[in-house]
């Protein structure tokens, strides 16, 4: 590492939040307690796709100790939110689009009473066909999850001339890659507390990765100016992208508005995992060509994804994955066509990497396949194609600084030679001779 002589950087300092965390005084959202505080809970759908025909909240409302039971009619402002497309309801107003959609909310004096009240709410559904695959979503006669198409978002990247490039290739490899749906499993389940302060400002203290976005959504839902809402991030127990969407913010604020009392919501592990976003499962059909020297000539990838019931960060994932589909390698001809669909599956969203982990499964698989076909070592083919200052990526952008890729390759190799020499030997060998 050659670096400037920094006074503070590139050294170790005790993190600013460490002391309170090791002392146990750090306040996570569930740790807040306020006088007169209520506990909140959500009545959720147990079907994936249905119209709500009847909703009976009277028995729950009649339970002593229950402060409010609210459905979508209680929302004073907008009942649609979402980081990019506003397609998710705070409380279901037209139809249920996934298992676990929020239909009603309850605030009561104790968590036990919340549980009991939720059990008293009655709902009647008119069930619709549930779309559970990308393929079914794309069929013309399939029911539509939103609007009149199940196409959530598409992207097309085109660079160079892919169709003409294949004849310049000495070797072409073609494979289909797929990744699965995963959960962030941040250790702290979602939680938050909302209250109106003495100035009438709605305060929301919440476990979140994006307080300013939360503020805007709470203000829109309440129909008040953004400066009448304060969102304060509680100490947050991990996120990994899973706390970028709205969790309890809107429900807490809505009930605090109606009851004029602080309302705390703490999701159980199951509820948290059930309704927070998931990693997009992506299928990538990819054709890659190279010269006999191992230089990449062309990449063509068709990418599809079942993004689940709501859009969340899908437009961000589908924007990022094509740009990264070749990996950190030079390639003069690239095409990537991507289609993400709405289904009634669990909602996918932001998860550490935004589609690049999925793309990496594809581009690294293809590099290994090429190495095998060309009888080169996996390290060698990567070095031959590595980005450097002056390389151009498939959007036409030239890289002008800070491209340390080759250094990561050589430094990883050298460290491996030291700590895992036999393992590195296997990597340096070509495929010849096989196993």
């Amino acid at each position, binding site marked *: 590492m050659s670096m400037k002589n920094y006074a503070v950087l590139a050294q*170790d300092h*005790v*993190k600013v*939040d*460490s*002391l*309170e*965390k*090791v*002392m*146990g*005084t*750090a*306040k*996570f959202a*569930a*740790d807040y*307690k306020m006088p007169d505080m209520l506990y909140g809970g959500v009545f959720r759908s147990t079907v994936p796709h249905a119209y709500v025909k009847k909703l009976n909240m009277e028995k729950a409302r009649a339970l002593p100790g229950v402060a409010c039971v609210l459905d979508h009619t209680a929302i004073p402002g907008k009942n649609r939110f979402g980081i990019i497309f506003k397609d998710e309801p705070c409380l279901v107003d037209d139809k249920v689009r996934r298992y676990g959609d929020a239909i009603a909310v309850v605030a009561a004096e104790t968590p*036990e009473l919340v549980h009991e009240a939720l059990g008293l709410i009655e709902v009647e559904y008119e069930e619709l066909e549930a779309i559970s695959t990308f393929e079914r979503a794309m069929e013309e006669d399939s029911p539509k999850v939103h609007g009149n198409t199940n196409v959530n978002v598409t992207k097309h990247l085109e660079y160079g001339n892919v169709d003409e490039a294949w004849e310049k290739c000495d070797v072409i490899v073609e494979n289909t890659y797929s990744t699965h749906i995963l959960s*962030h*499993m*941040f*250790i*702290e*389940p979602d939680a938050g507390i909302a209250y109106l302060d003495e100035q009438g400002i709605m305060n929301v203290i919440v476990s979140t990765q994006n307080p300013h976005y939360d503020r805007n959504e709470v203000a829109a839902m309440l129909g008040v100016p953004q400066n009448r809402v304060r969102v304060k991030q509680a*100490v*947050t*127990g*991990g*996120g*990994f992208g899973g706390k970028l969407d709205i969790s309890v913010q809107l429900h807490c604020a809505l009930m605090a508005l109606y009851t004029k009392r602080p309302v705390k919501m*703490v999701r*159980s*592990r199951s509820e948290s995992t059930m309704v927070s976003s998931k990693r997009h499962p992506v299928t990538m059909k990819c054709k890659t060509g190279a010269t006999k020297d191992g230089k990449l000539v062309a990449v063509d990838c068709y990418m599809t994804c079942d993004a689940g019931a709501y859009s969340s960060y899908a437009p961000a994932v589908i924007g990022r994955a094509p740009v990264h589909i070749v990996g950190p390698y030079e390639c003069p001809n690239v095409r990537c066509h991507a289609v993400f669909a709405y289904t009634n599956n669990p909602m996918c969203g932001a998860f550490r990497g935004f589609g690049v982990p999925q793309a990496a499964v594809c581009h690294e698989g293809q590099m290994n396949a090429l190495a095998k076909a060309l009888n080169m070592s996996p390290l060698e083919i990567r070095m031959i194609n590595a980005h450097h200052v002056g390389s151009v990526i498939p959007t036409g952008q030239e890289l002008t600084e800070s491209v340390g890729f080759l250094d990561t390759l050589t430094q990883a190799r050298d460290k491996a030679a030291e700590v895992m020499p036999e393992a590195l030997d296997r990597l340096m060998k070509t495929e010849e001779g096989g196993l």
Partner: protein
Amino acid sequence: MNKITVHCTVNHKPVAVEIDPNKRLLDMLREDLNLTSVKEGCSEGECGACTVIFNGEPVTSCCVLAGQAEGADIITLEGVSVDGKPDVVQQAFMDAGAVQCGFCTPGMILTAEALLAKNPAPTEEEVKQAMSGNLCRCTGYAKIVEAVLLAAERARGGV
């Protein structure tokens, strides 16, 4: 349901808590005694965030009813620090960079305290074993294991 009174020692002080029997030790510590360092991450004894030292042994307080604490000696993270200052394990967690989101930290530190009380010079493997009931999603455990070894070394007067 008849309320019960639980007499126990919490963080070196005797307490008597009148409580409904359908509460867990976790609830009693957090709600009745306001010891909110005890975290609830999974409610099934899996993540270890609610770990407390119970009669000298680390246990997950979500798997214990409040009534079972009768007569017990219980330590939470609030009872670890010395005169409001971090003890050797807490300091080592800070110095080793073992704290990220911090939600697993209380359980991690208590498990480490219980380990070091019995085994002041654990091997790396023993530390990994001892900490294997505390899930962490941020650190990959490397710096946590490092912190426990560092604390052991410092406690023995090494550094």
